[in-house]
């Protein structure tokens, strides 16, 4: 019968053991160091944050329920008003959702163009690909609040600055995600269309969009979910919608805590609702693709 070790071992076991041990030592050292650095960063980071915070973490911990308790107890006392308050703030909720929806829509259209113009093989002007990519990067990097606050000064408060701000960020974020999808698109139909003399927009419309649509829609839905939160937050700093009402109710303090609670319920319910709906729908979109 043949020898077990078919692959003859030129290295002696000793040297393999030694080199492996050395490697293990090195790995343990690096692993330990990485862990140590991480732990030091976490602990010192926590200490710095704790130190620069007005209240300390440990002193504050037991008070964590105070504020919700205040709000909830007042809301509970006035629970009879809650339905009418929810009805009262419903229009603000609609505004918040509208901001998210329009900005997702506009952002998705912007992202669509950025992705098509910034993807090799599809771009209208191949030489400008780096330009469109950088544009998308910058649009993605600017936090919504920056644009919103600046625009509030030019356009005045209300939903429009928030809408523009979120749309810009969305266009950048979706531009990047879309172009990852577009990179994997099959170029054969595009070439087929090109051979008939189709223009760039016709090639994209007929050759690329049908392929990428399910993924694009799925990403856009995810973004819509995120944008609902973003639009609520921007309301908090001056753009309209539910965030604005919430801020006012909370700023006023006791006496309006029932309003705060009503708004909170609306906001929470909306976020959870769209989260569930969109994740279900997204799953279906991406699953249907396998076939």
């Amino acid at each position, binding site marked *: 019968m043949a020898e077990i070790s078919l692959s003859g071992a030129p290295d002696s076991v000793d040297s393999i053991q030694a080199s492996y041990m050395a490697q293990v030592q090195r*790995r343990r050292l690096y692993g330990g160091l990485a862990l140590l650095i*991480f732990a030091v*960063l*976490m602990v010192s*980071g*926590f200490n*710095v*944050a*704790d130190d*620069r*915070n*007005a*209240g*300390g*973490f440990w002193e*504050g*911990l037991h*008070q*964590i329920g*105070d*504020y*919700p308790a205040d709000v909830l107890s007042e809301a509970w006392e006035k629970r009879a008003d809650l339905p009418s308050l929810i009805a009262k703030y419903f229009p603000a909720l609609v*505004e918040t959702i*509208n901001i998210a*929806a*329009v900005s997702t*829509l506009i952002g998705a259209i912007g992202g669509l163009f950025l992705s098509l113009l910034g993807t090799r093989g599809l771009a209208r002007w191949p030489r400008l690909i780096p330009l469109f990519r950088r544009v998308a*990067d*910058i649009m*993605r*990097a*600017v*936090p*919504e*609040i*920056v644009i919103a*606050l*600046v625009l509030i*000064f*030019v*356009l*005045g408060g*209300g*939903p*429009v600055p928030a*809408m523009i701000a979120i749309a810009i960020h969305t266009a950048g974020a979706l531009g990047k995600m879309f172009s990852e999808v577009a990179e994997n698109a099959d170029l054969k139909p595009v070439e087929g269309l090109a051979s008939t003399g189709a223009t760039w927009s016709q090639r994209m419309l007929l050759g690329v969009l049908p392929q990428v649509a399910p993924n694009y829609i799925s990403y856009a839905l995810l973004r819509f979910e995120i944008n609902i*939160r973003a639009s*609520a*937050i921007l309301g*908090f*700093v001056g753009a309209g919608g539910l*965030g604005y009402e*919430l801020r006012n109710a*909370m700023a006023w303090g006791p006496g309006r805590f029932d309003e705060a609670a009503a708004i*909170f319920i609306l*906001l*929470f319910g909306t*976020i*959870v609702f769209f*989260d569930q709906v969109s994740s279900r729908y997204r799953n279906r979109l991406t699953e249907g693709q396998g076939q």
Partner: protein
Amino acid sequence: MTATDLSFAKENADRLFQRKRLIGYAIPAVILLYLIYIFFAFDLPGLAGRANLNNAVTLASDSWSHKVHVTRDNRSGEITYAVEGERKGTYPEGQRPDWVTGDEVIIIDLGGNHIVRYLPENRTEIELPGFPMIEVQAEGRSLISNLPTDLPDWISASNRRIGITTPEGRITLTGSRTEVFNYFPGWELFWFTLDSPYHGQGLATILFGEQIDPARSNIAGAISDWWNNPMWRHKDVAWAIGETILMAFLGTMGAAIIALPLAFLAAKRFSPVMVLRAATRRLFDFLRGVDALIWTVVLARAFGPGPLTGALAILITDTGTFGKIFSEALENVDGKQIEGVSSTGAKPLQRYRFGVIPQVVPVLLAQILYFLESNTRSATIIGAITGGGIGLMLTQAIQTQKDWEEVAYYIVLIVVMVMFMDWFSGWLRGKLIDRKD
């Protein structure tokens, strides 16, 4: 194919295209209708009327330029020169910009033949090309001027106040004060304020020249003066950026550490008790649904303003998000590896450590690092609400409409910071995920 078959096929195709057109119209039509609804719901026609483009121009030009104020207090007759009219930018006693001359009569040359003269007794002469010389006398609360009644739109005048806006600068006169604003491009005093001995010195002089301040070496002194620059406050800005990144880092990592064990409870494979699993999932939904914004407000009572509050708010929300993502990753692990480890008699924890963790680590790391980047952006916003970091500085700078060059500076810094974190997390992802366990 027979003729009837063919015409049947044609009819079919016609119907097909009818249907496709209907869908083709319906989708854009729905979008269009929605946009029209939004157009009115958001009052865009009114907005067009209200939008203040002058403001936009003022802000835009202010963001890359600065102005020097030459102010005469009409009661005391005292004249001050100050960059941006700020105390910290005031020229020290006996110094003034070189475009101001004269002792009795102060002559301010705005350039382009725009000249303003502060005469004694609160009189002012303004020489503008192509416009008759303007003379203004301030008496008590009112102003007496030789301005005609029919004024161009760049002059706004009443008997109490005159404002003149020219391409070279702005002049305002009221009974109590006469003020000239001369505009220059650039971020003035970005390096050193006027009281620093290094102001106006070139880089070469500071690096290689003679010692400027006898008490300090040039480089140390210059760095310290720049770092402590009271107008641009580089030190505070650096701290604020550090605080923002710190919030994102603590929040993200803390959330990941907490979410990982909880995710096991929420994953069907590892948590056979249905009630426990459902409870954990609802908890994740709740944490996510309440949103960092509201957590910030809730936590502010307990912990007060500051970066810790922001970090905790991020931590709580992301625990929900990570919990969901992680438990999904755990549901998809490959059972073979776990079985292989189990068959050696490994204890339950060891089974997780070697059967599960190596499989999910790449997914987890990728997600954590992705969130680290996006949380940097969130931390900017949360900071603006909870009171910490660069976000607060930015919102305050914008809301108090002080200096738009400062706003521009912060915006650039924020964008650079986020892009840096984007690059950094991508780099780390590449490093870690390809690494051996």
